[in-house]
Structure formats: C-alpha cells, structure tokens
C-alpha cells in the first residue's frame, strides 16, 4: 500500500495544498517557457535573424522531453488523483505529437520551400511556387490519372478473387493444396515479384512468358514497350500479388455465413445463380466493402513494382503518384516539391476514403 509522500499515494482533490498546486503550475509553465525560448532561439538562428543559437535542433528536442515530463508531473501535483489518470493518456499523446503531428507540420513547412540537396544554402521559403508547379505539371497529372486507372482495376480483381473464393469454398479435389497455392504470391514481396515476373519471366528474349507469347503468335512480346501495354502489365502484376489477399478475406467471409441460411434459400427454390445473387452476395457485402477499402489503401501506395520494373516508363506512362514522388525526391533531389505532392496526396486520400466510407457505411452493416 502506497504511503504519504509516495508518487502513487492517493491524494484527493480536497487535500491539495496551494503550495503544491503552485509548484505544479510553475513546473508546467516554466518548462513550457523554456521550450518556447529554445525553439524561438533556434528558429531565429535558422532563419538568419540571430547570430546565436545551437548548431542543431537537438536542444529543442531535449526541451520538449523536459516539458513532457514536467507536464505529467505537474498534472499530478495540480489535480491529485485525477491528475494521475492523465498519466495514462499523456505519454501516448506526447508520442503522437512527436511522431505524427510534428513531422506533418515540418512537412508542411518543407512543402512551401525550395530545397535542393546540393545547395549549400539549404532550404528557402518559396511561397506557392510548388503548388503552381504541381498545377502545370502534366506528368504529375498523368500519374494521378494512372492512379484512377490502377484503382478502378480493383473491380476486376475483386471479381476474380470472389470467383476463386467460391471455388475454394466448394467441395473440390485438393482444396487445401489450392488454398495454399493461391496464397503463395501474397507471401512474396512486390520487389521479388518485380524481379521474378517483370524482369525474368517477361524478359523479351529468354523469359518463358515472352517465349510462350511468341509461340502464340505475338512476334515481339514487349510487355513494357508501349504506354498502354506497360500500364496493363503493371496492373496484372499488382493484381497477381494481391488477389490472394482479397480471396482469403472473402473466403473467410463465405465460411462465416450460417449454412442454414443457404439451405433455407435452397428449400425456397433459389437455384445456385439466384442463390448467389439473392443470398450469398448480399450477405458478403460487409466483408466485400472492407476488403475493397483495404485494397484501395494498398493500391494508393503502389510504387515498388513500378520503380523496379519500368521506373515509371516509358516516358512516365506507368507512373503512380507514389513512384512519381519517389523519383522527385530520389533522382531530382526536389525535396520541397516532392513533399508538397506527398502532402496533397495525403489530403486527397483522406477525403476520398472518408467519402467512400460514408457511401458504403449502409452496405457494410452485417445482414444477419
């Protein structure tokens, strides 16, 4: 049992002394002031308004940690027992501020900067220049249009995954083998898929898929040679990797449908096709919506296969927004512009996903 003076000793709000509360407030405001001063000094030095300051932002980080500790301790001093409850939440909140909020704010600053990694002067504020550049960048909008195409392909992926799930849910021979076999592509990283399929099997001279295509009459099977073909091939490779994920989720959903519902439908005369549309499919809607939403999130991050196989080519034709941003950062060292594109993309994704979730909310409710 905790005793008076221990940190865990129960102090109700009634027992709080003025001295104790004052000390708590002093700790919080003192450390906050210290943090503000350190950050201000550093900012003034970074922006060239002051000659003094620290060589790095590290002291600001230390001041932030000190403030975080004082804030927690101060809450206990000021609020007593209720303050201790804050201890459970504050570390997580402070962590989120450090790891999510701060990087996002810093990203926002960079997004309005001109920053080339070779520049000895580093980062300079350039107002809305990056937005203007984005607005007139045809190749960025081409990447955005590609994202729409790639995302729409999910409808086809979903249909195939549903078909495979139905097949594996029925009484077929070697069902377990097929379940494992169909899951294999999901085990591979997209980088491995890029090399195995895109670079090796589809290689125009010796790749077995290219050879087969030649046997079938395609004289020069260049899977990445034209913009349309390259886009299509990228979609196929991505689908090959992730259809198993959709399939396994749908299969789990199918197995969760109570057998008596389907049997009752049969008794009522629903033949297999009608039974699927009127019973199985509606019951699977919640699972389907979830699967599609997760898949959209995966798809919006599509980059690795493109970077490895086509590097966005030919001529930017296969670029996704993510691969485009990657090249802006990596090859062109356009840190400011790349960050702006990333921020804009983040906002668009959040808006799009919110709308999709609102629209599908009604369908996603369980039907049984």
């Amino acid at each position, binding site marked *: 049992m905790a005793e008076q003076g221990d940190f865990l000793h129960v102090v109700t709000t009634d027992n709080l002394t003025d001295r104790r509360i004052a000390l708590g407030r002093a700790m919080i405001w003192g450390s906050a002031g210290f943090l503000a001063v350190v950050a201000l000094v550093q900012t003034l030095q970074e922006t060239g308004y002051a000659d003094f300051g620290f060589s790095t932002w590290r002291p600001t980080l230390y001041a932030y940690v000190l403030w975080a500790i004082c804030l927690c301790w101060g809450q206990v001093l000021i609020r007593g027992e209720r303050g201790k409850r804050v201890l459970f939440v504050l570390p997580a909140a402070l962590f989120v501020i450090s790891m999510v909020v701060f990087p996002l704010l810093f990203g926002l600053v960079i997004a309005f900067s001109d920053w080339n*990694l*070779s520049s*000895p002067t580093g980062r300079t504020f350039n107002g809305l220049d990056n937005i203007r550049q984005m607005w007139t960048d045809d190749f960025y909008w081409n990447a955005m249009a590609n994202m729409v195409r790639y995302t729409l392909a999910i409808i086809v992926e979903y249909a195939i995954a549903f078909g495979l799930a139905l097949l594996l849910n029925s009484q077929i021979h070697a069902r377990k083998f097929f379940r494992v076999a169909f899951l294999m592509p999901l085990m591979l990283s997209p980088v491995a898929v890029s090399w195995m399929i895109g670079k090796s099997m589809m290689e125009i001279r010796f790749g077995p898929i290219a050879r087969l295509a030649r046997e079938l009459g395609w004289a020069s099977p260049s899977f990445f040679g034209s913009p349309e073909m390259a886009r299509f091939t990228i979609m196929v490779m991505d689908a090959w990797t992730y259809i198993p994920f959709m399939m396994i989720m749908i299969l789990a959903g199918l197995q969760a449908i109570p057998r008596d519902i389907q049997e009752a439908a049969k008794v009522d005369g629903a033949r297999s096709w009608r039974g699927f549309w009127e019973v199985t499919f509606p019951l699977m809607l919640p699972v389907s919506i979830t699967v599609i939403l997760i898949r959209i999130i995966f798809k919006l991050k599509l980059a690795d296969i493109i970077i490895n196989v086509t590097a966005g080519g030919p*001529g*930017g034709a296969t670029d996704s927004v993510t691969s485009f941003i990657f090249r802006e950062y990596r*090859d062109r060292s356009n840190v400011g512009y790349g960050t702006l594109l990333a921020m804009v993309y983040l906002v668009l994704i959040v808006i799009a996903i919110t709308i999709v979730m609102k629209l599908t909310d009604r369908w996603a409710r369980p039907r049984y």
Partner: protein
Amino acid sequence: MKVDLYEHAVRVAMSRRRLLQGTAAVGSMAALGGLGVKTAAAQDNIRAEILKIPGVGAGSPTDADWQKVGELCLATTKANVAEGEFEGVELTFMGLNNQNLHNFLFRGFLKPWEAYTGAKINWIDLAQADYNARLQQSIATGTVDFDILEMGAPFEGDTAGRGLLDEMPDWVAEQIEADDLVGYLKAPVGTWDGKTYRVTIDGDCHTFAYRTDYFGEGGIGGAEVPKTWQQINAVTKDLAGKTDPLTGLPAHGYLDPLKGWGGFGFYFVANRATAYVKHPDEAAWLFEPDTMKPLVNNPGWVQAFQDVMDLIATEGAYPADQINADPGTTAFSQFLAGTGSMLMWWGDVGSSARTSDTSVVGDVVGFGINPASERRYNWRSGAWEEEMNEAPSMAYIGWGVYVTSRVSGDEKKRKAAWSAAAHLGGKDLSLWTSAYPSGFQPYRNSHFNYEEWEAAGYDRAFVEDYLGSNRDSYNHPNAAIEPRIPGIFQYYSVAEDELAKGFAGQYGSAQETADAIAAAWEKITDQIGRESQIALYKASLGM
C-alpha cells in the same frame, strides 16, 4: 650502401621508396641464403604473375582469384604498415556493386589486407541507379556513415567542396606511384582547392566498340567501319531486317540505351552530342561559363536527340523492347552477348569482351575513339560549321577511392583507411583490373605496355586496338571533360527523365524535349546557387 650503387639506382630512376624496398629485400634475401635470389626474382615478376590469374580465355575471375591478386599485391602495403598494426580498427566502405564488379572485387582484394593489418571492413553496397541518391542524401543530411568511399570525380564538388573528405597523406601518393597516372587524371582532377583527396582506380572515357564481322568486304554493315555519327545512323537504319552473322538473330546497328540509369544514362546521349557541340576552341559544352545558361537545347544537342528519335522511328533499327534497355543492358546483355554491332561504353567492355564468361564477341570485336561529326555547332557564334569534329567524352572522369573526414581525428583509423585505399589503387593491382572484368579501364601510363598484355594471353592486334582507343581518347586535344560541380548528377538525372519522355513520344519534338531539360537545369542552378555554380564550373574547366 656504397655510393656507386646509390648513383646507379638514381641513374635508373629508382624512387627512394623502391630503393629502400630493394635494399631491405636484398638484405633479407641475403639472410635467407640461396633461396633469396629466386624469391626476389618472383617479386620482380609480380605483374606477369597476377596477369595469369585466371588467364585470358580461362573464364571470368572468381572471388578466389581476387583474393589471390590482393595477396600478391600486398608488398607495397607491407612497406608502410606493420603486421597487425590496425588490430581493432573497423572501417565502413561505401561503393558500387554494379554487375558483380567494383565492391565485389574490393572485398576479395582487401581480404588479405584485412588479414595482414588486423582491420575489419564493413560494406555498404549500392546499385548504380541508387548511388547518386544515397550519396547525395548522406551529404545533405549530414549523415555520412562511411569512412572510405568509392566515388567518381564529378562528385568532388559535392563532397570536397563541403569539407567532407580527408586530405591524402604524402606516403599514399608515394605508395600508389601517382606520377604514373595518365595526364588528364592528374590535377586538377582528384584535387580540390589545391589539395589531393583521391586514390584513382579508374580512367573513364567512352570508346567505340564494333563488330568486325559486320564490316569489311561483303559485310552486311558495309565495307568501312563508320567513323561519324552520320554514318552510324545510316548503317543502323540500313541493317534493319538483316541477319546477324554470328548469332543468326536479327541484325542491329548502334545500341542506344533508351532507359535511364540513375543519371549515368545521360552520358550515352552526351557522347553523341560532344561530336556536335564540343568546339575545339571552347572547354565548355554543357553550360555557358559566364551565365550557367544550359547549352543542352542548342541545335547541336537537339541534333543528338533527334538522331536517337529517328532510329526509334525506324522499325527494326533497335532490338525489340529497347525502350527498356539501360546502359548495363546494352553493354552486357546485348553487345557482349551478340546483339547489335556498335556500342559506346567505358573502356572496360574491351577487356570484358575477351575475358568474361558472358561475352561471345571476343574474336569479332574492334575499337575506336568516339565517332566524329561531319559538322559542329558553335554555340558562341550560334551557327553550324561544316568541319569534321572529334570530341571523345571523358565520361565520369574515373572512379576513385576517397577517405572521409570522419576518420580525420583518429590517426590510427585514418592511416588504416588510407592504407586500404592505397592497396586498391596500387600500381600492380591496377594492371590486373585493367586486363580483367572489373568495371575499370586502363588509366596509368604503365598500363599501355603492350608486351605485358601479350604475355597475359591477349593478341597484339587486339591490344593495340583496344588500348589504342583508350589512349587516343585520353590524349585527344578536343576531349570533352565534364565539370565537377555540385549537383551534377541532378542535372543528368533530370535530363534522363525528360529524355525518356521524349523518346516515348510524350513531347512534341526533340527541341521540345531539349527545352524541357534546359528549363529543369535552370531551376537546379537557381536552387543550388547560380553564382557559386559559375565559379566552380569555370574552375573545373580551368577557365
């Protein structure tokens, strides 16, 4: 030592270090009695011995071969470092792992060095396409996490210019016999602000390689080997639809890489452009020196881009799927494997033709310097001149091994890092890397001793042709030297991206593609700082 012996040594131009080594060797041999004479002879013959590893025609060298070569070339290290002197020292080495070359060899070469000195090396391997980005980010974010760096001279502006490199000690220059380097690799290359930072391990210039079975009397490519880009383009178009005499597959002419390579791909259109735009009276060919205004969209450069676009438009001129071929593909998967008849590449494709397992063209390969142009563009007068113009491209100005300033404060570590670099840049070891697949080409005056190559198994005609193309390029009075300015690979990388769009038909014309590159280059110059770029550009061109 007797005075007459000393004088004799001076007469035969023996260096002080060699003299001491010789004296020590003779002394120790004398102590060992009769065995001494034989061992000393073997030591003298080290160059012939390493050239037999594995031997021309014996297939590609393996890790065991690299280690053997490293072991046999340790004598110079032993002269400066005591056994076990670097016990407990750990060094991080960042370099390229391109096509199983560079870092792979270094590992083998340095294994006996590690065993002798007691130091340990940790490796950071980078693919060619990732090299620039990784180095640039390390520099910009102040996270240089390597002690030894394999780097090309073009990056000296980014590294030495920011004080990230350690100055080379005198004993290293002596150990590697730096005086032996070919002229264009001596200062200012490898020096920055008058200080030397680099152990050179490579030359670098693009040379022309062609298939001898395509040309000559009755050859499908014509009686004469093309000497100009105009002839090359005509032959390439003419070869479409014909059959390769070696493989029986479709015949092709010049192999342009149409896919980028992390910035390195830009060299492969620049080597077309130099013939059009590098004027003998001007050192500058990428930017106007007083303004940093890009020259890349002048009519000469546009002609180079147009050449490639014309070949893309000619069905069958390029192998199928050339749009996805980067320079690694054109050299190693296409030319050496028997696809296509003409190629521009760094010199090492020559030694690879004869000594790599992947080559089938070793008996039918010939070499020349960068093709000429029948006319050249003078950017100062803004007019074409009807003059034949040759301008070999000194693409990348050679790889070097650099030591970073991370070790500057620790004398033991610093000596260890420089010793490792000196071992890799040693005179004898470099002869081996020139003669076998390594990613490096001849770059020392001593590499042009034809007899040594003959003794290794090369035939005289091949050696004269191959080494001659390198030597003629290095010594060419109108060689196109690239500038060592900060961000040079950002310029190349963005150009590569825009070119890929142009080649894929995303821009309306070659001029439009060139204008897009120029606009992007202007932006980079503004970002980095125009005034400082002008100053560095002029300095790097000796203006």
